[in-house]
């Protein structure tokens, strides 16, 4: 579960906080657990929601025309103002990729969060497509589409690197 969150948010300290938040929610909400749902899937669902919520909040801040509402200085506003164009790899991405282990990690980091969650559940956690669909509350066809697209994108990123 920690690996999933870490690869979703790509920041170890933040991943620790979100993993902690996940387990606190799991333990405090244990009475709402439905036994027909696999326990680990329930935990992954809460973990993934925590990571996606964080990424959405971050995206909202990043995509504000005037910069993040949380910005305290003009420099911070400028730094968080609308960024136009394709996502480029930043120096921070480079640092994260080194920490996470290289090109494949960097390629995973460039996937949309929805694709990233699916590919990690499939290839790191070994979940079946059906389990991923139940865990992420997605139709089975959507999960298959996400995973196939994610693999295509990963191959392209990795082949670009090799060329």
């Amino acid at each position, binding site marked *: 579960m920690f690996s999933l969150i870490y690869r979703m948010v790509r920041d170890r300290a933040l991943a620790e906080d979100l993993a902690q938040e996940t*387990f606190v929610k799991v333990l405090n909400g244990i009475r709402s657990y439905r036994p027909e749902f696999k326990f680990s899937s329930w935990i992954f669902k809460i973990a993934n929601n925590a990571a996606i919520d964080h990424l959405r909040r971050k995206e909202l801040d990043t995509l504000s025309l005037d910069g993040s509402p949380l910005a305290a200085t003009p420099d911070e506003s400028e730094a968080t103002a609308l960024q136009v164009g394709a996502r480029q790899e930043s120096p921070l991405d480079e640092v994260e990729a080194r920490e996470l282990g290289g090109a494949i990690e960097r390629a995973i980091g460039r996937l949309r969060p929805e694709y990233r969650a699916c590919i990690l559940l499939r290839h790191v956690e070994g979940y079946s497509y059906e389990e991923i669909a139940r865990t992420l509350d997605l139709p089975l066809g959507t999960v298959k589409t996400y995973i196939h697209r994610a693999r295509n994108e990963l191959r392209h990123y990795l082949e670009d690197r090799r060329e």
Partner: protein
Amino acid sequence: MATDLHLTPDELELWAQGLLSAGRTMHLADCAECRVAAERERKLFLELAQLPRFAPEAGFVDRVLAKVRIPTPSGDYRV
């Protein structure tokens, strides 16, 4: 299924996992396009299979338990 049909993405995945039926695997012997696609699939699967798992820092469990509400005999919760 006929062996002259190209492998679908699902079949390529099965092949990369060693689970594709012998009948469909035969298609690869005759189709260079599918062989290339299958090899690319297998290469990616190998890279993904080597991804390490990460663990939180020491003391993680204690930090979680410090925030969990523990039920008391009176029905209340103790943090």
